[in-house]
């Protein structure tokens, strides 16, 4: 057992001569329970502390609950317990408790996915196109949006300039006409009051006319 352990350890140990990417302050995240250090990931091995394993434990049978409780207590106290290292072998369902560490592993796919999701959110969802014509098809509208997205990828500053012109243009217009709009509401309100009796009659004649304008 001991010999096998040493061999495995030697296999997963990094070249000590190679410079470490960072001084981790003497902390080793796995301490005694896990042979895999998080700093030099060994991708050929499945991750020992994976959630499917926990799920199997939880859902397999209620009998295993006691194991789960024991393991969680172990995990809780993992800093103070010292024991022989447990070697996870491929396909094992054994849960190896591990201390929470500041560093973790990630795969290339995770990097790409994370970046692409963010770029998608920033370029596709953030685009607010102008109003299309009524005869425009769905594809034309979509194509225009793709075009804006392409220009946002190519020259984001230019698109920002365009958005800024729209923003400040709309601001100018709304500031200029805010008062006018309120005045028009009051205007129609007074008119409405004056003509209330007659309007009531009209509302009876044309039910869908109503008071919507005044409200």
């Amino acid at each position, binding site marked *: 057992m001991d010999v096998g352990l040493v061999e495995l350890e030697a296999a997963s140990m990094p070249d000590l001569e190679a410079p470490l*990417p960072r001084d981790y302050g003497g902390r080793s995240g796995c301490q005694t329970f896990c042979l895999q250090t998080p700093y030099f990931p060994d991708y050929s091995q499945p991750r020992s502390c994976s959630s499917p394993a926990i799920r199997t434990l939880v859902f397999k049978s209620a009998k295993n609950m006691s194991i789960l409780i024991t393991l969680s207590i172990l995990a809780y106290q993992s800093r103070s317990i010292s024991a022989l290292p447990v070697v996870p072998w491929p396909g094992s369902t054994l849960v190896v408790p591990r201390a929470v560490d500041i560093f973790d592993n990630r795969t290339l796919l995770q990097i790409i996915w994370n970046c692409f999701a963010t770029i998608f959110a920033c370029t596709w969802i953030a685009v607010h196109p102008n109003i299309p014509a009524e005869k425009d098809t769905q594809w034309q509208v979509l194509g225009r949006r793709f075009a804006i997205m392409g220009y946002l990828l190519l020259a984001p500053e230019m698109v*920002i300039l365009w958005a800024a012109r729209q923003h400040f243009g709309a601001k100018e217009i709304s500031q200029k006409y805010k008062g006018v709009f309120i005045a028009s509401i009051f205007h129609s309100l007074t008119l409405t009051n004056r003509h209330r009796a007659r309007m009531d009659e009209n509302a009876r004649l044309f039910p869908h006319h109503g008071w919507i304008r005044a409200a």
Partner: protein
Amino acid sequence: MGGFELHDGDTRLRTLDIVELETLEREGKIDWPSISQNQIDDKSKADFLTKAFVVVQAMWFVVGCIGRAANEITVTELEIVTLAFSVLNAVVYWLWWDKPMDVRCPIPVYLKSSPKTLECFGKDNGISSSFPHDLQWTQQPALTRTSSPSGAQTNREPKGTPAHFLQSTDATSTSTDDIYDNLWPFTSRQIAKRGVPGGLFYVFIYYPISVLLQPFDDMFNLTNFRGMEDRVPTFYAPALQSSSDSVVLLLGLTIIPIFGGIHCLAWRSHFPSVYERWLWRSNSLAICVMPFSMILIGTFIHDDKSDRSIWQKCVDQACEVVLIAQIILYIFSRICLLVLPLIALRNLPPSAYIALNWIFFIPHVS
């Protein structure tokens, strides 16, 4: 933009800009459209969740990158590019926050002066003619359904029937498509006009480039509808007062170095080869500097084309050529900066595969 559309009863006439809206209102042909902010917000297809998703995703990404840099783990070039987009996205989002997203139907503005409706309702129901609008609002469509629309006299003179109107807009809005559908007639016309080499140059080099570059010019200064009637152009924005104009320019001038500067953050980072590193460095410097020189050169070009001396014409031509060359160079730089991070993924430094465990930062017992 392009949220208001002029209607004559059932017939849609054209999209209104603020100038025409003002003119029509002053002439008493329309009532000022009263629409509240809630009504405008209601047109938006993006709800709170969509907006929150983008904001949270971008902010989370920025925080993650800062965390990686603070712990001295590699931030890959792809992440640098994404970081730049996230920061710029914050600005775009702030600018477009109140603009409703994906509006499909503009708000109708109805022409007041249709003599028939006035006749009908003014007399029969005893409503004074100063108050015709509320009736027209709902009643006019029912009336004009039987009669042809008439009485639309405005400064842009709408064409009589709807069919004619549609024809005319088809001709203007799909002219670009027509050219590529009928490449040969277009080419032969240009050859007849400019001679063989000139025509070929125009059709195969000058025209495609101008089509590609036109939006850049539009984004910078398109304030009219460019002959379109049924919608606003893709990169339309209303004309600004000079004070707002300078604010826009100032915003652009601050954004440009920020965007380029974020790319420069990867100045010393790991690249698979030396060439890629220097390509990255030169291109990120280029996108910092080039927009400034473009703006500078743009100021030399005269806006007024009518009275220029020969000398001024020569200066303008030279400036335009330099400007177009710079824009093309700029696009190449941008494409480089988008492609380099992707091909750099083939050989990442080991610490790029380390992730920060955010659970560690949440207060917990261990």
